């Protein structure tokens, strides 16, 4: 009993640690200026319509990316937070300038749906396998004595001569 409780406690701790690691993973970001600049220019799209992330737009004579990159530098040196910078760009260039949907309003669905589908499928698969496993045990435990099986046994006995033979 004690051993079980220890295992349970250990399991809960492991899950807690895992959740904490994921929370840290998804919530923190780099903070020094050059890292912030690099991080943020990968959160924005080039506004010229080339479909590239701002930090990676490299086509010759792009009219938009140097302007946007300069604005980004100004915003960072001006002391704005990441969210303020992203909001400012979205207000100026439209929502399509953000390289990923914001995690608010209807766009939150974009982030929730994959996780929800994965968890639902995972849970569904686990439950299905457990149900199959339990069904298998029940089937093994139950006496096999249906009329069809009895008839089949009778037929086998007759055909193999195991009834009244030697």
């Amino acid at each position, binding site marked *: 009993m004690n051993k079980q409780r220890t295992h349970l406690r250990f399991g809960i701790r492991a899950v807690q640690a895992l959740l904490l690691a994921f929370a840290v993973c998804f919530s923190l970001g780099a903070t020094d200026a050059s890292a912030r600049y690099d991080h943020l220019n990968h959160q924005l799209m080039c506004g010229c319509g080339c479909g590239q992330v701002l930090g990676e737009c490299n086509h010759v004579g792009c009219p938009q990316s140097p302007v946007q990159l300069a604005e980004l530098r100004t915003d960072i040196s001006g002391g704005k937070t990441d969210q303020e910078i992203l909001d400012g760009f979205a207000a100026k260039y439209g929502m399509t300038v*953000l390289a990923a*949907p914001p995690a608010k309003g209807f766009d939150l669905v974009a982030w929730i749906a994959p996780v929800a589908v994965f968890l639902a499928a995972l849970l569904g698969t686990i439950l299905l396998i457990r149900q199959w496993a339990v069904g298998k045990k029940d089937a093994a435990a139950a006496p096999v004595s249906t009329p069809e099986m009895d008839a089949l046994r009778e037929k086998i006995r007759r055909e193999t001569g195991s009834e009244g033979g030697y």
Partner: protein
Amino acid sequence: MATFGSLSLIIALALAAYNLFAGAVALRLIATGRPAPISPERLADTARRAGIAGFFAVTAAAFALVYSVFTNDFSITYIMEHSNRALPAAYKFAALWSGQEGSLLLWCWLLGTYGFVLRLRHKTDVKLYAYAGTILAAIQVFFLAVVNFAAPPFSLLRGAIPADGNGLNPLLQYPEMVIHPPLLYLGYVGFSVPFAFALGALMMRYPGEKWIKITRVWTLVTWLFLTCGIFLGMHWAYAVLGWGGYWGWDPVENASFMPWLTGTAFMHSVMMQEKKGMMKSWNVWLIFSTFLLTLLGTLLTRAGLVSSVHAFAQSSIGSWFMVFMGIVIAVCIFTFILQRDHLRSDYQVESLVSRESSFLFNNLVLLTACFVILWGTLFPILSEYVEGSKVTVGAPFYNRVAVPIGLFLLFLTGVGPLLPWRSTSLRAIRRNFVIPSIALATTIIVCLAVGVRPWKDGQFDSGNFYALVGFALSASVFTAILSEFLRGAAVIAKQTGKNLAASTYVLIRRNTRRYGGYIIHIGVVIVVIGLCGAAFNRNTERELALHDTMSVGPYTLECVGFTQDSNANYNSDYALLDVYKGGKKQFQMAPEKRVYLASQQPQTMVAVHSVLSWDLYVVYEGTNPESGQPIIKAFLNPLVSWIWAGVVLIVFGTFVALAPSQTPVTASVRLPAARTVPAEAVLKGGD
């Protein structure tokens, strides 16, 4: 030539329609056993022959288009828009798939080629092949109708014929573009064949799992083509687009990746059906979904529903594809409902920790990844519909959502082969997992020691964290697979007295499928290691005057010249850079920027120096108009060559898996070839 091409396409459509109609009537007559004025077997054979003739008609049309490109027949609109006189010969071939009409003709030709091979091999199982051939004919009818009526490649130009064409899109003027699209299309189109077999087997209530064995080679070959196509596309993006990366989560890339994921899931779960008679309905739906995803991908990228960096061909053929997809879905659902009792599983999974359940989880993860990509690709449309404004779903979304899923899949790649079938004991788990766990822990410690840490300047770095997890899992999975090889080889070495290398060879030959699969998994591990390298990419940009230098990583680049060149096809600016490492000159690089004369479009020609540990990747960004000096951007991309090396191993592993196994019995006693059963007899008696 335009008339010849158009006529060939009309004839091909007529033949495919006859193949479909006559084949369907014949199979119906055979199934019901109703008397008919013509022998159903003979009718089925005429349908098959029409299918074969159809291949020659489409080949004639494809030849007509290629001939027109080579003879600069600018009276044909397609040729005028996608070629020009100065275009090198290799790229004139590429013109065949550079636009909507040509690429659909290529699709038809590849479909015709697959159909041709399938119909020639009909004696393997006449009835099943007749069903598959008829279903394939239905797909051919659709695509041939599209190229005849919605996107005709031979439509003539109105007005005066220009002296020269607009030229080929500069992005396509790269050697890989001559092989990447055909390989990708071979993969896309190829999934029509397993789809046709699966649907046919379901329609005819094919007894047993033999149809899976018959289609196994088709599926593997198709998967191989798609894999090669995707990776060649990555390499092309890396070498041509000049942004230092190889995968941008663009809708066109996503469109090719989704059927690959479901196809991979099918190849895994189909083993459960073969070995245990399980997951029959699941497998049928996997292959249905894979085929539907190839259609959806085509619809998304060609109908202008989603914008893409490299959607070369967009038009209004979307409605055609939507209707066809609707028909395919309806037929699949109808057939499934009608025949679902035929798909009842013989066995069920008995334990949560077993080989069977690992296959289930593998499928779950692959399908979740497919859903995530589909969801991300379609979400801008959904968002626009709900909110009235579009949003962008780009790399940050996929990196955050898809990368953890990918790592979980990598974990399963290692765990799956270590679990026995049916169920496993705690002792077996301990025994099998000790070495991979040690490898995992050791790699984490080594990575932390050498500086791969999930934090930088006291802050958490998700890129480094994923790289650390990726490296550790890769080491663990590699060890797990290696131990499988060693365990098997040691047994053979003990039995035969051969050395370990020879025993490993015998082991692989005895079960090519299993060990070919393991080789593919090692290839995947190597690819993942290469992908993890992206977390440590570095780049720098500078305008360089003569003898100016710039540094990236251990390299120093010195500009020793910048000049211009021109030929009939393009003008180019390029810089000559001497590369030094440790004060010694190592080699010279010449990044280039071209402007193609016909289209007046610029194009980057990246200079790449690749070694095992990293790529030095140099881009000629442009010329400063004031100083006339080149602006150079240099990247140091670690481990990129591992990606391409991993792909080579994946290809090798697939070839091994395709090779027939040589069991000890067949190795020593060669059986005589089986007698061929007359086609008619099989067709009559096989129902």
